[in-house]
C-alpha cells in the first residue's frame, strides 16, 4: 500500500514537473494541486523542515493571518477575490484554525464569520476580531466564546476600494497596543471619527487606538504597503508588495515611494529587490541564535520565503538578504503572509495560485484559482518549543511576569491580554502588578532594558502615563531604550509636565537614532523654540551622510514651520546665531518671507562654504526681485569664483520662476565682456532668461561674431532663443541654422527657430537632419520638437517628400515612441523619410500559441541574454535585472517566475498592450505650450515630478499644468523591429527564464554588478603606452569610461571589455590578429567607515588589481582594509591569459556592515 502510494506520488511528481514547465507556456494547464507535490519542490536551509499545517478544502485563499492568545490561528480568506460577479453572493470568511494536540498540524477549522466581501485583514482582539473588508474596519464579537461571531460592528468606514488588492489590510498590534493597518497606492480613504475626519490618499500605514477611536497616519507611501512589524525595541519596518526596495525602515511620519503629495521620500534598505509582501521579525527561542532578529518576508512572485539580516548604520539600518527560508519552483506556491506561532515556528500562508496578477490578467481568467490555499509550518529540527501560557487564567502578577519572556510571541500576547483585562475591570490590579514588576526587576539580568521598555509600552497600552519610568528610560544606558522611550514622549505629549525638556538631551544623543526619534517627536510642540532644539541634532555628528536623520529634521522643520517662521521673522527665534541651523530650516521649509535673512548673510559674507549651496537654492526658489537685486549687486563686485554661483542662482530664478532682479540692470552689460568664458555664458543666459531686451543688440553681435568662443556662442544663441517675439533675435537665429562649422550652434539656432517660427524651424530642422552624420546628435532637436504641441505636426509636414538617414530617423522614432504621446502621423512621416518599419505586432490567439511554442522549442536564453545586453536595444537602460540597470521600467528580476510566456511575448511585440502598475505615462501639457511625458514619481504641493524615458526627473510646476492625461507605455513599440524572429524567440526565452532557472536568477550573494570599462580611444591607448597599466587606476582625463553590467548570474563578460589598446610585451604586438589584448574595468562602492572588504574571485588568471590607485596582489580571496569613503578597484584584464568571465563577490567580516554596493544605472 505504502509502495503504491509512493509510486503514485512519484508518478504525479513527474507529471507535475512537466506541468510546471508547461504552465508558463500552455494557456490552459495548471499544476496538480496536491500539497505533497508542492512540498516536494521546497528547498530549505540545512536543519530546517517544513510541514503542512492546514490546506484546502478546510481553508481556501488565505490573505492575512494572526494568532490569538489561545494559540489559535485566525485567517481572512476570500474566494470572491478579485471582483464580485453580478448575482454572486459575497460569502468570504474569517476562519479559526487550532492545533489542539500541539503536533504542528491544525485539528479544527471553524468559520468565525461569513458573509464578507473580500476581507483583507484580520487581527484578533477585544473579545473577537478586527477585520478589514471593503470600505470598513469591522469588529466581530464572540460573546459566548464558541468560536463563532455573535455581533458585527462597523468600527471605521470610508476606506477606498479602487483596487481589491490594496484595500485596508495588514492589521497588526503594535508594541504599544495600537492597531496598525495598511492601505496601498490606489486607495483613497475618508474616515469620520468623533475627533474629526482623517483622509489618506494613496498608500500608507494607519495607527489606531480602537477604544478611543484615535486614528492617525503613521507613515505614507509604498506601492503596496504590505507587511509591518516592530523589532524588540519598537522600531518599525515595512515591506512593499509592489515596490523593489526590500525592507523599509519606517520613520514616524515619513513618506516613501509613491506617497501622495510628498516632496521628498525615504528609500528602502534593499534597492533592486523583487517585490516582498508581509513581514515577521523572528524573535523566538525555537530558532538558532543567528536567526534571532531576522526579517522574514515573502517573494510571492519568485516562490520564495526570504530572510534578511539588518544591522545599524547611523540612525538607520543596512539590510542583507540571506539564504531563503523556502525556495521553490512550484508555479502556484504564493507565500503571502508569515507569522511566528505559539510554538515558535514560522507559519506561512500560501495563497496557492498559478496566476497572481491583478490588472494584467483578466478578472475572469479561468486560470485564477478560487478554491485552494495552504498554511505551511517551518521549524528547526530539535528547536525549543516554548510553553503556551493560559493567559486569561493567570493572576495579574503572573500575566505581567510573561512580559519577561524571551519569546516575542508570548510578550505580545501577554500585553494584549493585560490590556483587555485592564479594560474589563482589572485596571487597578494590572497597573499595580505592572508597577511592582517594573520596580523590582534585576538590573543586572540580561534583557533588563528591553523588559523595562515592555513595562513602559504596557502602560501606554493601558493609556496610563508613567512619567517616572519614562524619564528613567530616556536616561537609560541602552540607546535602543532611549530611542523607544523618546517616541513614547510624543504619545503622552499633552499629559507630561515638560515634554520638550525631556527631549533636550536626546536630541543630541550619542546615538543618531535616538536623535532621530526625538527630532520627530518635537513635531508635537507648539513652542517656536522647538525648531532650535531640533536642529541641535545636526551638531557633533560623526557622519554627515545620515539620510534618515537628515530627513527627520527636514520633516520636523516643515511640520513646525507655521510656528517658527513668524517667530524667526519677529526675531524671537534666531538659532543662537548658528547659520548652519538657520540654513537647514530654510532649505527645508523655505518661503519668500525668509529670503531677506539669507540675502543679508550673503552680503555680509557670513554663509559658511558648506551652507552656501543650500542657501542659494532657497534664494533661487523664493527670492523676490528686490532680494535678487541685492544678490546681483554682490555678484557684480565679487571675484569670479564667488560670482559664478550667484549668477547661477539668478539664472535659475529666471528660468524656473520668470523672476528677474529689480532695479536698473545697466551694469550687467560688463559681464558679457568678462574675461572668464563661464561668466560670459552665464550672463548671456541670464539676459535670455530675464528677457532683458536692452542687451539684445550686444547678444546679437556676439552671436554673429566668429571671434566669440564656441561655448559662449552656444550660450548666446540659447539666450537669443528666449526672445521668440523679437525679429532681430529670430533673424539672427535663422541666419545661423546653416553654420556648418559649428553644428551645435546650428542645432541650437534651429531649436530656437522652432520655438519662434515653427514652420521655418521645421524646414531648417529637416535640412539639418538630412545631412547629419552622427545620429545621436539629433536627440535634443527631436526633444524640442516633441515638447511643442504643434511640433510633431510641423516636422511631419516639412519632412514629407524628403529623405533623412535611416539611423537619424530611428533616433527620432525612439524619441517619439518613448514620449508616451500619440504621434501616429509623425512616426509614419519619419518612417517613410528614413525608410524604417516600426509597427507593433499584434498576434491572433492561434499565432500566439504557435509563437509561444516556438519560443519554448527554439529559444535560447543564453543568446537571449546577449540580445538583452545589446546597446542598440538599450533594454538595460530602462529595465534593471536585480540591482543593476535603469529604473524607468519594471525590474525584470523574477519576470520568468511571475509572468506567463504569452504575456512576455505580447509585451515585447506590442508594449502598449499591457502596462505594469506604476509604469503608465503621464502626459502633461503646460501653459507655456510644452508637453512633458514620463512616469509619475511624486507630486509636491508645488510641482509634479516625472521620470522620463532617459531616466531623468522632470519637475513641472503645478500652476503651469493645463491638462494631464494618462499615456501609453514609455517602452517604444517596434524595438524588436531590428531583430530577426529567431532573436525574438531567444529574447523571450531569456526573459521567461529570469528568476526561474538557477543560472538566470539573482542570488542574495553580494556581487559586483555595475562596472565601468575603459573606452579604447587613441588618447587612452597613448597614455597607457606612455605610462603603464597602473595609470588606468588614475583619474587621467584622457580616459573615458562606459557603464556595463555583469550578467544575471553576476558574471562580468570579457566580451564587454574593449581591448583595442596596443601594448608590446616580449616583442609581441598583443592586439595583432589572433591575439587578444588587455582591457580595463573598474567598480566602486562606498564604505561607511574603516573596516575590511573581503573580495572573492572565481579565477584570478590574467588579473591585475589596484585599490584606490595602489596595487594589490591578486589572490582568490583578498581581505582589503578600507577607510570611510569611496573605494575604487581597477582591473587590468589580459584576455590572452584569461577566458573565463569575472565573478567578484564582496562580503564583510562577521559583525561589520560598512559596505553598500551601488545599484541602478
Amino acid at each position: 500500500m505504502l509502495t503504491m502510494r509512493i509510486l503514485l506520488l512519484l508518478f504525479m511528481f513527474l507529471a507535475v514537473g512537466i506541468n510546471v514547465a508547461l504552465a508558463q507556456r500552455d494557456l490552459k494547464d495548471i499544476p496538480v494541486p496536491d500539497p505533497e507535490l508542492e512540498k516536494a519542490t521546497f528547498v530549505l536551509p540545512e536543519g530546517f523542515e517544513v510541514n503542512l499545517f492546514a490546506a484546502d478544502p478546510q481553508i481556501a485563499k488565505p490573505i492575512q493571518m494572526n494568532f490569538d492568545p489561545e494559540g489559535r490561528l485566525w485567517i481572512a480568506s476570500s474566494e470572491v477575490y478579485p471582483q464580485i460577479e453580478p448575482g454572486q453572493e459575497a460569502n468570504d470568511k474569517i476562519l479559526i484554525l487550532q492545533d489542539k494536540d500541539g503536533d504542528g498540524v491544525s485539528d479544527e477549522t471553524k468559520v468565525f464569520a461569513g458573509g464578507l466581501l473580500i476581507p483583507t485583514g484580520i487581527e484578533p482582539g477585544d473579545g473577537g476580531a478586527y477585520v478589514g473588508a471593503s470600505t470598513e474596519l469591522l469588529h466581530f464579537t464572540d460573546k459566548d466564546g464558541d468560536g463563532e461571531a455573535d455581533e458585527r460592528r462597523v468600527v471605521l468606514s470610508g476606506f477606498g476600494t479602487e483596487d481589491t488588492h490594496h484595500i485596508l489590510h495588514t492589521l497588526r498590534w503594535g508594541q504599544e497596543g495600537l492597531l496598525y493597518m495598511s492601505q496601498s497606492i490606489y486607495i483613497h480613504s475618508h474616515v469620520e471619527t468623533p475627533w474629526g475626519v482623517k483622509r489618506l490618499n494613496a498608500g500608507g500605514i494607519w495607527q489606531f487606538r480602537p477604544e478611543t477611536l484615535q486614528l492617525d497616519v503613521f507613515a505614507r507611501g509604498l506601492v503596496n504597503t504590505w507587511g509591518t512589524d516592530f523589532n524588540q525595541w519598537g522600531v518599525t519596518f515595512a515591506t512593499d508588495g509592489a515596490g523593489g526596495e526590500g525592507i523599509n525602515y519606517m520613520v514616524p511620519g515619513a513618506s516613501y515611494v509613491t506617497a501622495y503629495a510628498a516632496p521628498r521620500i525615504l528609500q528602502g534598505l534593499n534597492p533592486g529587490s523583487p517585490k516582498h509582501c508581509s513581514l515577521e521579525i523572528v524573535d523566538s527561542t525555537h530558532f538558532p541564535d543567528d536567526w534571532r532578529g531576522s526579517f522574514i518576508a515573502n517573494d510571492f512572485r519568485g516562490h520564495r520565503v526570504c530572510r534578511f539580516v539588518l544591522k545599524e548604520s547611523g540612525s538607520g539600518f543596512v539590510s542583507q538578504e540571506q539564504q531563503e527560508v523556502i525556495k521553490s519552483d512550484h508555479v502556484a506556491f504564493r507565500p503571502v503572509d508569515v507569522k511566528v506561532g505559539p510554538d515558535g515556528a514560522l507559519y506561512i500562508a500560501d495563497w496557492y495560485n498559478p496566476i497572481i496578477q491583478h490588472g494584467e490578467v483578466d478578472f475572469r481568467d479561468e486560470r485564477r484559482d478560487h478554491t485552494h490555499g495552504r498554511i505551511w509550518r517551518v521549524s528547526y529540527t530539535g528547536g525549543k518549543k516554548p510553553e503556551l501560557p493560559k493567559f486569561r487564567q493567570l493572576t495579574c502578577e503572573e500575566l505581567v511576569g510573561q512580559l519577561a519572556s524571551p519569546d516575542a510571541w508570548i510578550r505580545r500576547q501577554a500585553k494584549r491580554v493585560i490590556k483587555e483585562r485592564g479594560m474589563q475591570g482589572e485596571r487597578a490590579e494590572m497597573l499595580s502588578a505592572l508597577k511592582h514588576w517594573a520596580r523590582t526587576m534585576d538590573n543586572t539580568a540580561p534583557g533588563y532594558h528591553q523588559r523595562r521598555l515592555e513595562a513602559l509600552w504596557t502602560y501606554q497600552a493601558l493609556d496610563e502615563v508613567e512619567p517616572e519610568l519614562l524619564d528613567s528610560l530616556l536616561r537609560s544606558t541602552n540607546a535602543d531604550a532611549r530611542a523607544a522611550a523618546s517616541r513614547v514622549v510624543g504619545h503622552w505629549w499633552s499629559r507630561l509636565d515638560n515634554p520638550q525638556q525631556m527631549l533636550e538631551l536626546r536630541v543630541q544623543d550619542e546615538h543618531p537614532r535616538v536623535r532621530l526619534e526625538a527630532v520627530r517627536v518635537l513635531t508635537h510642540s507648539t513652542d517656536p523654540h522647538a525648531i532650535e532644539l531640533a536642529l541641535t541634532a545636526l551638531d557633533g555628528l560623526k557622519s554627515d551622510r545620515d539620510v534618515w536623520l537628515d530627513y527627520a529634521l527636514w520633516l520636523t522643520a516643515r511640520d513646525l514651520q507655521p510656528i517658527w517662521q513668524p517667530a524667526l521673522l519677529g526675531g524671537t527665534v534666531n538659532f543662537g546665531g548658528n547659520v548652519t541651523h538657520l540654513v537647514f530650516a530654510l532649505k527645508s521649509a523655505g518661503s519668500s518671507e525668509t529670503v531677506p535673512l539669507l540675502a543679508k548673510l550673503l552680503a555680509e559674507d557670513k554663509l559658511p562654504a558648506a551652507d552656501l549651496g543650500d542657501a542659494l537654492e532657497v534664494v533661487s526658489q523664493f527670492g523676490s526681485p528686490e532680494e535678487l537685486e541685492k544678490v546681483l549687486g554682490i555678484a557684480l563686485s565679487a571675484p569670479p569664483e564667488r560670482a559664478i554661483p550667484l549668477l547661477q542662482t539668478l539664472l535659475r530664478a529666471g528660468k524656473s520662476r520668470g523672476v528677474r532682479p529689480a532695479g536698473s540692470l545697466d551694469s550687467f552689460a560688463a559681464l558679457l565682456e568678462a574675461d572668464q568664458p563661464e561668466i560670459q555664458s552665464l550672463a548671456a543666459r541670464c539676459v535670455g532668461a530675464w528677457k532683458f531686451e536692452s542687451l539684445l543688440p550686444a547678444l546679437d553681435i556676439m552671436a554673429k561674431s566668429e571671434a566669440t568662443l564656441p561655448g559662449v556662442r552656444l550660450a548666446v544663441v540659447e539666450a537669443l532663443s528666449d526672445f521668440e517675439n523679437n525679429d532681430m533675435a529670430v533673424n539672427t537665429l535663422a541666419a545661423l541654422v546653416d553654420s556648418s562649422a559649428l553644428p551645435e550652434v546650428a542645432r541650437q539656432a534651429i531649436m530656437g527657430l522652432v520655438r519662434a517660427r515653427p514652420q521655418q524651424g521645421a524646414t531648417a530642422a529637416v535640412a539639418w537632419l538630412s545631412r547629419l552624420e552622427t545620429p545621436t546628435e539629433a536627440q535634443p532637436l527631436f526633444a524640442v520638437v516633441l515638447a511643442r504641441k504643434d511640433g510633431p505636426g510641423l516636422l511631419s509636414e516639412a519632412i514629407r517628400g524628403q529623405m533623412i538617414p535611416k539611423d537619424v530617423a530611428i533616433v527620432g522614432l525612439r524619441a517619439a515612441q518613448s514620449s508616451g504621446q500619440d504621434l501616429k502621423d509623425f512616426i509614419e512621416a519619419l518612417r517613410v523619410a528614413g525608410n524604417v518599419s516600426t509597427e507593433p505586432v499584434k498576434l491572433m490567439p492561434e499565432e500566439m500559441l504557435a509563437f509561444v511554442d516556438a519560443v519554448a522549442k527554439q529559444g535560447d536564453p543564453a543568446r537571449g541574454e546577449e540580445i538583452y545586453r545589446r546597446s542598440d536595444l538599450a533594454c538595460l537602460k530602462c529595465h534593471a535585472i536585480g540591482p543593476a540597470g535603469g529604473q524607468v521600467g519594471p525590474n525584470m528580476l523574477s519576470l520568468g517566475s511571475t509572468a506567463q510566456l504569452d504575456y512576455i511575448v505580447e509585451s515585447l511585440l506590442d508594449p502598449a498592450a499591457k502596462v505594469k502598475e506604476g509604469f503608465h505615462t503621464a502626459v502633461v501639457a503646460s501653459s507655456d505650450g510644452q508637453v512633458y511625458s514620463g512616469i509619475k514619481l511624486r507630486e509636491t504641493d508645488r510641482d509634479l515630478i516625472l521620470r522620463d524615458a532617459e531616466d531623468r526627473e522632470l519637475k513641472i510646476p503645478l500652476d503651469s499644468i493645463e491638462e494631464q492625461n494618462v499615456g501609453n507605455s514609455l517602452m517604444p513599440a517596434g524595438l524588436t523591429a531590428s531583430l530577426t524572429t529567431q532573436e525574438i524567440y531567444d529574447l523571450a526565452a531569456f526573459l521567461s527564464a529570469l528568476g526561474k532557472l538557477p543560472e538566470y536568477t539573482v542570488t542574495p550573494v553580494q556581487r559586483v554588478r555595475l562596472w565601468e570599462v575603459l573606452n579604447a580611444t587613441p588618447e587612452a591607448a597613448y597614455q597607457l603606452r606612455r605610462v603603464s597599466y597602473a595609470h588606468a587606476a588614475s583619474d587621467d582625463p584622457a580616459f573615458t569610461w562606459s557603464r556595463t553590467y555583469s550578467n544575471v548570474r553576476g558574471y562580468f563578460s570579457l566580451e564587454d571589455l574593449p581591448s583595442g589598446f596596443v601594448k608590446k610585451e616580449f616583442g609581441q604586438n598583443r592586439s595583432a590578429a589572433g591575439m587578444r589584448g588587455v582591457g580595463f574595468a573598474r567598480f566602486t562602492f562606498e564604505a561607511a567607515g574603516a573596516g575590511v572588504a573581503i573580495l572573492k574571485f572565481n579565477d584570478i588568471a590574467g588579473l591585475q588589481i589596484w585599490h584606490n590607485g595602489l596595487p594589490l596582489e591578486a589572490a582568490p580571496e583578498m581581505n582589503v582594509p578600507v577607510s570611510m569613503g569611496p573605494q575604487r578597484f581597477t582591473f587590468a584584464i589580459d584576455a590572452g591569459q584569461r577566458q573565463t568571465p569575472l565573478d567578484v563577490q564582496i562580503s564583510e567580516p562577521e559583525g561589520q556592515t560598512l559596505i553598500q554596493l551601488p545599484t541602478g544605472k
Partner: protein
Amino acid sequence: MPNVLRRLCLFTLFLLFSSAGLATAQDTPTFEFREGDRVILLGNTLIEREQLYGDWEQLLTLANAGKHVTFRNLGWSADTVWAESRGIFDAPEKGYERMIAQIKELNPTVVIFGYGGVEAFDGSARQEAFLTQFRKLIGDIRTPECRFVFLTPAVIRGYAVPVRRDLNVGEHLEQYEGTRAAVCGLLQTLATETGGIYIDIAPVFADFPTQRLTDNGLHLNAAGYQATGRIITAALSPQVKLDEIDLTSELAQNLRTDIRKKNELYFHRWRPQNFTYLFGFRQHEQGNNAVEIPQFDPLVAEIETRIFDLAKTIRGVE
C-alpha cells in the same frame, strides 16, 4: 480667538439663525410622497451607513406603500458639499462633477441631504463657504419637480464618546456643538430658500441616551437609525400614523432584509470595487469586465419589485 469670544460669536450666530428658524417653522411646507418618486439620499457617513441598516427606507416604504417610491443611497463617508471624499484619483472638483452627472442621470424628484456633520468639525471658518457651495450644489441638480430635504448633523454627547485621557473632550465637543448649531441654522435657511423640508434629528438624542443610539457618540447604530427614521417619516409622511405600522413582523423584517440587499447591489453598481481597472486609468486592462457592472441593474429592479409588493401586502393596500 479666545474661547469666550468665540463662544460669544457662535451664540450670536445661533440666535440669529434660530430666530430665522422660528420664522420658517411656522410656515413649514408639508410634504407628501407622490407616485413613482425617485429619492436620492446624499451626504456623508450618516447617509452612507443608512444603507447597511435600511430602517429609514423601511419606514418610508411602508408609510408610502403602493406609491412605488425608489431610494438610491449616494452617501460617501466624510463627504462635504465640496464632494471632498469623491475625487478618487482626481481633485474633489472632478468628483463633484461626476456626482452631479450621476444625480442628473437618476433624475430625482426628492433629494434628502445629510451634509454638515463633517463641516461642523471644521470650526466656524468655512460656514459662509458652506452655504455658498450648498446653494451651488442645489442649483446644479435642481429641476422643477425636485424637492429637497435637509437633515441636521448628529448631536454628540460627552458621555457617549470614548473616554480620552489625553484630550479635553468637553472643550472639543463644545466647539463641535457650537458649529453644528450654526450649521443647522444654515440648513434652515436653505430649506426656506428652496421650499424644502428641514428635519432636525436632534430630538432623538434628547429622548434616548445616545450610547444606545450610536456606536461611538457620532455614528448611528441600528437603534439610532430606527429612532431617526421615525422622525424623518413623521416629517415626510405626516398623514401616516406611525404607530399603525408593525415593524417587528416577519414580513416587515423581510422587507428590511430586501432593502439592505437592494442597497448592496446598488452599491456594487455605482461604486464598484476595482474602479481603477474597470473605469479608471487602467481600464485598458480590465475595462472589458466593466460590462458586468450594468448587470446589477436588473438585479436591483427585480428586488425593488419585491419590495413594492411586500410593502403593499404588509400595509394591505392595492
